[in-house]
């Protein structure tokens, strides 16, 4: 069997999305961004979320992070309903250029969330240094974000999230604007950080290769109206590297499968369970 069954949840899920529906009320009428989404993330899981453009991935992340209230359904973090931005969650937004404070230097940007939560100076300095080092930006702490390239700005945003030491890390197509080499480095960085901190990661991407390489699990969304098209386990070895992992036959198989599912999703094919709704 290529496709694994959804894992049985023994311990309490870290993050739980239950029958989530989101309808935007606009002047031009209602826009249903998400129809019905249900999935769980176990503590320390690294899941990738793929789906066609406009399938409501950003909308989903905003609901999970408590920035927006769902129209129906709920999001549970550690069993508690999310009603506002939870403390132990960090989000890296798609629009990297607009998520950093242009009036603060790189270092201050990374430091601000920690300072805001009253982390002592010495510890703060240590965390910031480590995070900047990890994303390869230790050499530009005194630059302003707008003095950096798009990829570097996104790395600052990642450093800020990493330094914050969240329990849950949400990332919305964070590598869309970076070159292939930086992208590969950042993918490895995410896996390193994940392994080290055992943080629960939900990583949104539209890149199929990336989702398979990065994730322990890939959740495929259907096109709008959005439901979960498929949820598969990526049974690749935990230690991955760009050359060898991508050359594995299993990698190709999984990649092929995800690709097929996305093509089906684009054509409007719905998973059997969702057709009735």
């Amino acid at each position: 069997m290529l496709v694994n069954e959804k894992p049985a949840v023994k311990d309490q899920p870290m993050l739980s999305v239950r029958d989530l529906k989101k309808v935007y009320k606009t002047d031009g009428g209602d826009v249903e961004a998400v129809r019905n989404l249900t999935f769980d993330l176990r503590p320390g899981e690294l899941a990738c979320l793929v789906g066609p453009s406009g399938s409501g991935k950003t909308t989903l992340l905003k609901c999970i992070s408590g920035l927006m209230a769902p129209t129906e359904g709920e999001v549970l973090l550690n069993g508690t309903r999310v009603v506002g931005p939870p403390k132990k969650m960090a989000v890296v937004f798609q629009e990297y250029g607009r998520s950093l404070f242009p009036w603060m230097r790189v270092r201050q940007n990374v430091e601000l969330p920690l300072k805001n939560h009253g982390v002592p100076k010495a510890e703060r300095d240590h965390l910031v240094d480590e995070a900047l080092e990890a994303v390869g930006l230790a050499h530009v702490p005194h630059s302003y974000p707008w003095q950096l390239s798009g990829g570097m700005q996104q790395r600052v945003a990642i450093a800020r999230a990493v330094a914050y030491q969240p329990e849950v890390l949400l990332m919305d197509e964070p590598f869309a604007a970076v070159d292939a080499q930086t992208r590969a480095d950042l993918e490895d960085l995410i896996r390193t950080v994940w392994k080290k901190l055992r943080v629960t990661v939900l990583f949104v991407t539209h890149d199929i290769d990336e989702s398979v390489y990065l994730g322990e699990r890939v959740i495929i969304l259907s096109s709008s109206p959005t439901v979960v098209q498929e949820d598969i386990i990526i049974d690749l070895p935990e230690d991955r590297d760009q050359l060898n992992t991508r050359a594995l036959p299993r990698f190709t198989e999984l990649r092929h499968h995800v690709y097929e599912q996305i093509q089906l999703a684009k054509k409007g094919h719905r998973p059997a369970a969702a057709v009735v709704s």
Partner: protein
Amino acid sequence: MTWLKSLAYLVGLPLLLILIWWAATLGRPNFFFPAPGILMDTFGEVWFGERILSDVLPSLGRLLAGVAAAIGIGIAAGLLIGSVKWLRALLEPTLEFFRAVPPPVLVPVLMLLMGITDSMKVVVIISGCIWPVLLNTIEGVRAVDGVLSDSARTYGVAGWARVRYLVLPSASPQIMAGIRQCLSIGLILMVISEMFASSSGLGFTIVQFQRSFAIPEMWSGIIVLGLIGVAMSFIFQWTERRVLRWYHGQKEVENAG
């Protein structure tokens, strides 16, 4: 060499204008337009005496107090009104109305209410200066970027930290534009507040000279006003360059790219 050059740019046009003026007054002495030399002498006599203490400094003090209060109150109220949606909807039409009332018409009213006092004059200055700061601050607070605001929220930057690290810096370009207008209105109102029933101050002195046909003295007073305006403008620009360094830098990058 470069500072010499910038000095030349700075004084070049003023020197030229003085030269033209001097040439124009050369042949036929005009009662209403004294020659530069005469004016220069008058300037020294009139302003480098006790008038500095009795008129210039008190006027400047009131100007400073009025402008500082207008900026302080304007920013504080603007932050509040800009952040609270219903408050903004409630107040905005009324604010536009008050902004439209020309402050000089308030002088007689305030005189009746407060008497001819220093505080009356300061209130006149505030009543005119506060609007550009207030309305620009409201505008700036409203224009805070959505993604940036979301970022701040997810990291728990709320309350006073949100104002300090997000709202205030984000609105600072608009606030500075408001302050620029506030300064020039302030100077005008400083003079006007002293023109009615006053017994000292720059505005009073200039009107006094005018009424007694002390023409060179009157002109010298106008020059003092001009110099105060220039000094304020320089101080403003110096401050603005520092406060909005990031903003100008970002604009430059955006325009280049």
